[in-house]
């Protein structure tokens, strides 16, 4: 299953090779042309040159992670986050380091040695280290080096009815949706773009926005599902199992309203559940793609994921299927009626 392979592949920002290779192999027979640009963005074209209108659909390949910044004399590794990570989710988690995927565990001072005051404080990055089971700096240096990227080591598993657990559903869920969309044929120009370095500031998309000038851009994301205890109803974002979520505003974009209205209509006509992403925080590739050149109408459609930016996220596979169905139906409507205006 593609989602399992995508989730278990390692692609911390700037080292997206594994996911890119996987997608290339998976899609090369379904599209006209596959290209990788200098930053590593993967472009999959279908009828792009010859057909109108031109639609760009983007999902980012990278995931949040850590970077080794110091090797202590006893072989423990210090690190910094790559992308936004809550340090409180890190302790005691298994990780893999660098290209060779050296296994390690994130450690901290054990409870027995902590002062009473320390137990009340949340652990910060400076209180944590990675233990790769070596005794010395020299031994550690034989396995890892400064600048190596660190990813969570999380097995993909099925839980409950159609719910799956894994890492990096932000944005492998979006990648899985886009891969599925690219397998169908359309009477329009389609560029499926898998971007790099979104988690460190939508940097891949910055370049993509300057490269292509489509008539409409759709960004596919895995976004926060906040249907969990301790969050007040009105402060929620999206709900898992309630279908794809339309962004009403985020830190990077005000979406194209006519396209949102069209998506709502299509969902209703086809009995596809749909919701709004009620949080307006965070940013996505959409800003750079909307404003890279002369301005492109842009929307963001997300698959709700619980516990994003953590070692174990949950996603409802029905939401993924419904997101695919929504976008495919939307593209069918564009074939008939053009881009909403």
């Amino acid at each position, binding site marked *: 299953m593609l989602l399992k392979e995508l989730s278990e592949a390692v692609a911390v920002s700037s080292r997206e090779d594994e996911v890119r290779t996987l997608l290339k192999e998976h899609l090369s027979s379904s599209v006209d042309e596959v290209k990788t640009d200098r930053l590593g963005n993967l472009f999959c074209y279908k009828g792009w040159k010859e057909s109108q209108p031109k639609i760009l659909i983007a999902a980012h390949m990278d995931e949040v992670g850590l970077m080794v910044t110091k090797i202590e004399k006893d072989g423990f590794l210090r690190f910094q986050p790559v992308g936004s990570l809550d340090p409180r989710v890190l302790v005691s988690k298994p990780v893999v380091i660098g290209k060779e995927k050296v296994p390690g565990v994130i450690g901290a001072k054990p409870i027995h040695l902590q002062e009473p005051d320390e137990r009340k404080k949340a652990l910060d990055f400076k209180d944590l280290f990675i233990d790769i089971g070596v005794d010395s700096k020299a031994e550690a240096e034989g396995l890892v080096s400064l600048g190596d990227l660190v990813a969570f080591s999380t097995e993909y598993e099925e839980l409950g009815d159609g719910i799956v657990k894994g890492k990096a559903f932000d944005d492998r869920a979006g990648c899985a949706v886009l891969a599925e969309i690219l397998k169908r044929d359309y009477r329009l120009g389609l560029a499926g773009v898998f971007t790099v370095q979104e988690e460190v500031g939508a940097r891949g998309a910055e370049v993509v926005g300057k490269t292509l000038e489509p008539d409409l851009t759709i960004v596919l994301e895995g976004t926060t599902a906040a249907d969990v205890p301790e969050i007040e109803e*009105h402060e*929620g974002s999206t709900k898992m199992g309630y279908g794809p979520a339309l962004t009403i*505003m985020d830190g990077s974009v005000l979406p194209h309203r006519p396209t949102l209205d069209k998506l709502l209509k299509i969902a209703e006509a086809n009995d596809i559940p749909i919701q709004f992403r009620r949080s307006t925080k965070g940013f996505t590739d959409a800003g750079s793609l*909307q*404003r890279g050149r002369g301005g492109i109408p842009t929307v963001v459609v997300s698959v709700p994921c619980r516990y994003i930016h953590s070692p174990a996220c949950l996603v409802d596979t029905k939401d993924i299927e419904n997101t695919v169905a929504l976008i495919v139906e939307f593209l069918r409507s564009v074939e008939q009626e053009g881009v909403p205006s």
Partner: protein
Amino acid sequence: MKEILTKLTRLYGPSGHEEFVRDAIKEMVEPHCDEVIVDPLGNLIAHKKGSGPKLMLAAHMDEIGVMVTDIDKEGFLRFTKVGGVSPHQLLGQRVVFKNGTFGVFGHEKLDDIKDLKFEKMFIDIGATSREEAEEKVSLGDVAVFDRDLVEAGDRWIAKGLDDRAGCAVLIKVLQELSSSPNDIYAVFTVQEEVGTRGAKTSAYSIEPDLGLAVDVTLVGDTPKAPTNAVALGKGPTIKVKDALVLAHPQVKESLVEVAKSHGIPYQFEILDNGGTDAGPIHLTKSGVKSGGVSIPCRYVHSPTEMVSKTDMDNAVKLLKAYLTSVQV
């Protein structure tokens, strides 16, 4: 000017929903321009052709607002801000949605008014259930202040003077400028309040030789105001800097020269907080010499912004003289 400003400030136009303002401006400027187009993000580009260098002037059409993020079962709306809105500015205000639905603000019980945050506030549209509320508003809908323009001596008071005052000045300039050797693009931009976004894409398409933002600027002429030399009624300001741009010295100096030679009063704008469309314009492609002419404004981002009539008239005079004479 009064007629234009009354009309423009009354219109609904938060970031992302500038269409009413755009339609009104289009009608006012179309007879005076060679070409008027709307670009993909919704910027209105009014072109007065000339054989000289391309000059881009930008005044933004959008205003701040509040966006609905939740509707509860009793029909109360939770919201977030669109642009720079402060919670305390909302207390006691009336807002209006695009379809004419009115709302007022309430807040949860607070032990201290300092705890006032958007999360503790709600909009009451008079609905008694979620169903009733959903007939009038939907998640993502945006409301703006409801407050008509009034006169007070030499001053005008209204919501949305930031930057409908700039739009009005630019409209007047287009209407009164008979001819210019320069190739003039007056751009009424979108989405300035959420990060000068419309100016970014329109400047990319136009690729101007010189850029000027026409916006409002903060003043320091009220009791115990933050230090700022700008005062209402002492003339439009010539931009030296704002948070997003250092005005190109040639642009600044040529504006000063024109003001002096035409006997138009002016002040310098040295704005610490707050950026304008001049920011993205000057960073377009390989760079654009940019600056700005601003209208001093009190109580910016409140429902009762205040500007001086004579400052606006002088801004029109300065821009007309500048566009006719400037050499890039």
